[in-house]
């Protein structure tokens, strides 16, 4: 089928402003969602390779979905609002640890006031969402400097959040319920009495989260707030002079972004790792998320998914390939080669298309439209 808009007339603005105004895009999305929501569970159910083994679900799809969600959050801040952040790992951690605290019961003895704050263990879903909310509050706090600090200076400054929270969760035993090693275990995943335990259940859970948030995020970025963010990103002075308040725009971006990242952090901890330590949310995680959005395409929700896939899955493929092909290489060599090839692919991709996969796709679509003429 050809990719043509011709003949697709819009008769209302609402239609013109739909998420995917083009028919073919809608079909593609429907197919994708169909595969994700129905195809994968079916395949897994019938043990069809490679879905039969847990590996694909647990070690690839699960982290992919969760990190894609986090990447959407990062993309809102970095891609849409132009505030480069290297503190995403910290916001994931905030989400994870506050969800943990809320899920296991909070007790703050205020001895000098003569009473204590006690919150009983909350249901998992609620604690995950509240974990996101806590992350949003922290995000706003660490977003305040962005009113003054810009660009790379801001990026480095956000590392303050990263290292500070690494330290807090390591040092303040209260957050880990005084576990001797500082490593904590997620509460059992009980959703309205439904225990989410098997890989496929976990997958579905994450898929629902990701889909919902992706749609909400997409709505936001193409609405008024999204335009404000992008205006701040592209030309902050002009934005201010046409009546956009930088304070509001930047802080909402920090809040929304951190909320999503926080939820992703809670999912990462609860659903993927099950048991974790602050190192799970280290600076490497922050960098990884940033890579995802740059490679995927700044300012593109779709790009966040592709970026996540590229950064997360490609190295695994590269790592698997020699064993699959039976090339006799030592693990050491394989890993070093993996680094070299992965790095080269990043460079190659950027040279081909400096704006990442999202742009590559939109150019591809443009080509399709022109097809069979080259221009």
């Amino acid at each position, binding site marked *: 089928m050809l990719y043509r808009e011709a003949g697709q007339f819009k*008769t209302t*603005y609402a239609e*013109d402003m739909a998420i995917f105004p083009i028919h073919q895009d809608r079909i593609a999305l429907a197919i994708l969602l169909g595969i994700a929501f129905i195809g994968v569970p079916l395949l897994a159910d019938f043990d069809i390779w490679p879905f039969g083994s847990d590996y694909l679900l647990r070690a690839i799809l699960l982290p992919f979905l969760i990190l894609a969600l986090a990447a959407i959050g990062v993309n809102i801040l970095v891609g849409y609002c132009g505030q480069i952040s290297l503190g995403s790992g910290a916001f994931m951690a905030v989400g994870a640890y506050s969800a943990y605290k809320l899920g296991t019961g909070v007790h703050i003895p205020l001895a000098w006031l003569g009473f204590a704050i006690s919150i009983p263990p909350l249901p998992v879903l609620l604690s995950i969402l509240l974990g996101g909310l806590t992350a949003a509050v922290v995000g706003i706090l660490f977003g305040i400097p962005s009113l003054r600090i810009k660009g790379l200076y801001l990026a480095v400054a956000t590392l303050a959040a990263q290292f500070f929270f690494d330290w807090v969760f390591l040092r303040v035993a209260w957050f880990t319920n005084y576990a001797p090693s500082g490593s904590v275990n997620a509460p059992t995943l009980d959703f309205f009495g439904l225990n989410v335990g098997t890989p496929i259940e976990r997958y579905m859970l994450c898929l629902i989260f990701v889909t919902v948030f992706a749609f909400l995020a997409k709505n936001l970025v193409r609405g008024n707030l999204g335009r404000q963010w992008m205006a701040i990103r592209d030309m902050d002075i002009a934005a201010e002079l046409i009546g956009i308040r930088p304070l509001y725009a930047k802080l909402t971006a920090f809040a929304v972004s951190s909320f999503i990242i926080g939820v992703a952090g809670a999912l990462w901890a609860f659903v993927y790792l099950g048991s974790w330590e602050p190192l799970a949310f280290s600076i490497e995680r922050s960098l990884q998320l940033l890579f995802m959005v740059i490679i995927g395409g700044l300012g593109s929700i779709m790009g966040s998914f592709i970026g996540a896939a590229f950064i997360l899955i490609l190295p695994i493929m590269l790592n698997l390939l020699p064993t699959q092909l039976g090339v006799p290489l030592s693990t050491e060599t394989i890993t070093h080669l993996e680094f070299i090839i992965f790095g080269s692919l990043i460079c190659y991709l950027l040279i081909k298309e400096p704006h990442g996969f999202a742009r590559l796709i939109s*150019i591809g679509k*443009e*080509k399709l439209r022109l097809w069979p003429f080259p*221009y």
Partner: protein
Amino acid sequence: MPKASTPKASTATEAAAPFLSVNNIEVVYSHVILVLKGVSLDVPRGGIVALLGANGAGKTTTLKAVSNLLHAERGEVTKGSILFDGVEVQSLSPSELVRRGCIQVMEGRRCFAHLTVEENLLTGAFTRRDGKSAIAQDLERVYTYFPRLRERRGSTAGYTSGGEQQMCTIGRALMSRPKMILLDEPSMGLAPQIVGEIFEIVKDLNVKEGVSFLLAEQNTNMALKYASHGYILENGRVVMDGEARALAANEDVKEFYLGIAGDKRKSFRDVKHYKRRKRWLA
């Protein structure tokens, strides 16, 4: 692409090969956006050639193709060739081109924002090897051309006014002692008497030092007054070309580019108010 429809400038009086010749080039941005659809033009040695045309016609693109700056914008010349002084431009780096005497003044006041005005001017002399005093002399000359720059020589270029930045970019190009200048909208944002001065400088350099010019300009009036030749670009194609005087006399040019109908300039207040309203959606 209809090369035939764009006959080459036929100033056959000049036997020598043109200093710059652009032959039927096609330029594509980002692999999909076709902007120039077969543009050909010549600049004779010591000539001033004007490149005219509406917004988006492709003037800037043509100049960038000549100075080989397109790839930095993800554009490429997919067809045709450009010869500067007999050498294929594509085979030279931008800096080599400057060294050989071909420099572009980019549109949009591209100063080095963090450098002072004087430092900006001095970067223009980067390729020169003829010693400090010669450079100092030229600096002096630029300051004579643009006294306003002398006043602001120590200021950070990013904070100077639009016109000052424009002078700065032009002055910077002059500092390289070029043989051929590709001037992109030199008059933009300059006060009327400075515009006049710029064209005087162009003439001056052309007459005294034999510098050739390819001039992309919206101020058709001025451009055709000073140029020997003109090309009119529309939608990536040369639609008309010829001697400047002949062009200026052409009725269409008069009407569309010079705004002279009959022989009187029309007031901007009396622009026709015909409505081209077409409803897009019901």
